[in-house]
């Protein structure tokens, strides 16, 4: 096992440490709550000479991502971060690095979307960027925020991947919380991320054209090539997580299970509420209930195989969304249902929406969802239609 020290670190600072240890060349970012501490710490690192990087102060998130695209094409290792409305303003440009195969790394301090104005956490910003073609993963605590950010560079820049990667850390719940975590010594990280070698680096001696125009005779071929390449990144993601685990002792998986042995009921969560959900599972297990927890670590590409495997013996799957897909219910619940549709044996899926705009989800909230889901399943079996319930909302 490699040498590490236990430190108290804010989630934002943990991300900044990973960006420093990755020897990032270019950072282009615009401050927005609750991401601000990440950029503040990075600009301090650059100013103090702790990190030899170009910090580009841009005038918007749209420009931040545009600068990242250019810098990445020039062969630089690139980082940005944003949240909420900032990610939305960046949206147009987010498709560019994924379709141009530029391995930009971004951390999102997840935040609700206006209106009404909210700076607090939910997953509306994340769900609005589901389809951008970036590898997307979620952290549940500050340790994972650090580990996954470091891994994101290696995954994105893998010559068999070359896609941008996004790490979601829940705004405030991780970005502003200090907790104990293990931080590897600088020399222990050395070599974990190989040199970035982009095959078509912008070079006056070897001119190329990037981001070209594609009429109908070639655009579908471009998208097919992108989709096939994107879907086949999972082995490389697994390879990096294994290499990380072998080096630092912490192993990650696309779908992570907690107390799922003989579980008939499973709760599915994503992000920072997952550890609180574990406490709810512990309490229910102590009462003799066959419940377990599944967390989606990898969100894109969607880990179909691992997910189906995780729920194959489950009778009721309770899905928590921290986002509303208006007119459609919870987006994660919809995707989970579609992932199971063709399966011969599949659980009942009951969706809940909670934790919007920074509303805490407590242990009782998870217990309520599980109890309520069992009632809803009885109603489904009676042939009744079930609506997605928003928990903890005052009538």
């Amino acid at each position: 096992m490699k040498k590490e020290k236990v430190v108290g670190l804010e989630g934002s600072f943990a991300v900044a440490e990973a960006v420093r240890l990755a020897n990032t060349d270019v950072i282009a970012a615009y401050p927005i709550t609750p991401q601000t501490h990440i950029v503040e710490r990075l600009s301090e690192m650059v100013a103090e000479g702790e990190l030899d990087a170009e910090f580009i102060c841009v005038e918007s998130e749209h420009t931040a991502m545009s600068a990242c695209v250019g810098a990445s094409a020039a062969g630089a290792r690139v980082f940005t971060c944003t949240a909420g409305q900032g990610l939305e303003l960046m949206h147009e440009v987010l498709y560019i690095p994924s379709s141009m195969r530029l391995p930009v790394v971004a951390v999102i301090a997840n935040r609700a979307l206006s209106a009404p104005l909210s700076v607090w956490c939910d997953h509306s910003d994340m769900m609005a960027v589901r389809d951008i073609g970036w590898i997307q993963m979620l952290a549940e605590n500050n340790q994972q925020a650090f580990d996954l950010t470091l891994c994101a560079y290696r995954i994105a820049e893998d010559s068999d991947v070359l896609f941008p990667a996004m790490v979601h850390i829940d705004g405030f719940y991780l970005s502003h919380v200090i907790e104990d975590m293990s931080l590897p010594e600088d020399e222990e990280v050395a070599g974990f991320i190989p040199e970035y070698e982009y095959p078509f680096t912008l070079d006056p001696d070897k001119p190329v054209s990037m981001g070209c125009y594609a009429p109908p005779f070639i655009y579908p071929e471009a998208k097919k090539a992108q989709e096939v390449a994107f879907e086949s990144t999972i082995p490389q993601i697994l390879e990096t997580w294994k290499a990380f685990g072998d080096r630092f002792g912490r192993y990650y998986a696309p779908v992570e299970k907690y107390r799922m042995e003989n579980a008939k009921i499973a709760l599915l969560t994503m992000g920072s509420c997952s550890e609180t959900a574990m406490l709810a599972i512990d309490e229910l297990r102590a009462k003799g209930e066959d419940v377990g927890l599944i967390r989606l670590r990898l969100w894109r590409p969607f880990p179909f195989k691992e997910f189906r495997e995780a729920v194959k013996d489950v009778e009721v799957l309770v899905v928590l969304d921290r986002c509303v897909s208006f007119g459609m219910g919870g987006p994660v619940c919809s995707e989970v249902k579609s992932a199971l549709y063709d399966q011969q044996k599949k659980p009942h899926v009951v969706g809940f929406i909670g934790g919007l705009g920074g509303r805490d989800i407590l242990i009782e909230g998870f217990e309520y969802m599980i109890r309520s889901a069992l009632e809803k399943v009885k109603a489904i079996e009676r042939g009744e239609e079930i609506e997605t319930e928003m928990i903890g909302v005052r009538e």
Partner: protein
Amino acid sequence: MIEICIYGRGGQGGVTLAELVAHAAILEGKHAQSMPSFGPERRGAPVFAFLRVDETERIKVRAEIKEPDVLLVLDPGLLGVGDVVSRLKKDGMTIVNTIKSHDEMKSKIEANKIATVDAMGIARAVLGLPIVNTTMIGALVKATGIVKLESMEAPMEERFGKVAAKNIAAMRKAYEETVVS
């Protein structure tokens, strides 16, 4: 696990207090989590910071503290703002910065156990500033033993640099003067 709510005003340093104690606890090999009450910062507005410390187990709960074991009040004026003391656990403790006598406070606050100290007086005398957050760490440590007093020095030196010595002196003075019963 011990759960502490720090009740102060925006700008008084309640969040810094929670962070410093969390750092000290982690340096002692404990698990700790400090969490501000999320949102915009408004000077003078009543605001909570939250601190959890556990000797052995990793802290998994990630939400505001509803029923603290300890309520640490940085500003006595806040005792009348909102119904904070009633949120305490039954055997919980209130620690207050006050110029009043311990007995007078004891009769005023409905809590099982209280600790009092004139942190403002100490801060003015030792720091020359009316900022009580580091001083109140002395009271917290005396009343709860959540960390060793010495463990506070390294995080304070890292955070405050040149002015750390004065803050440490103020903390130590408060530790000596805090009355607990």
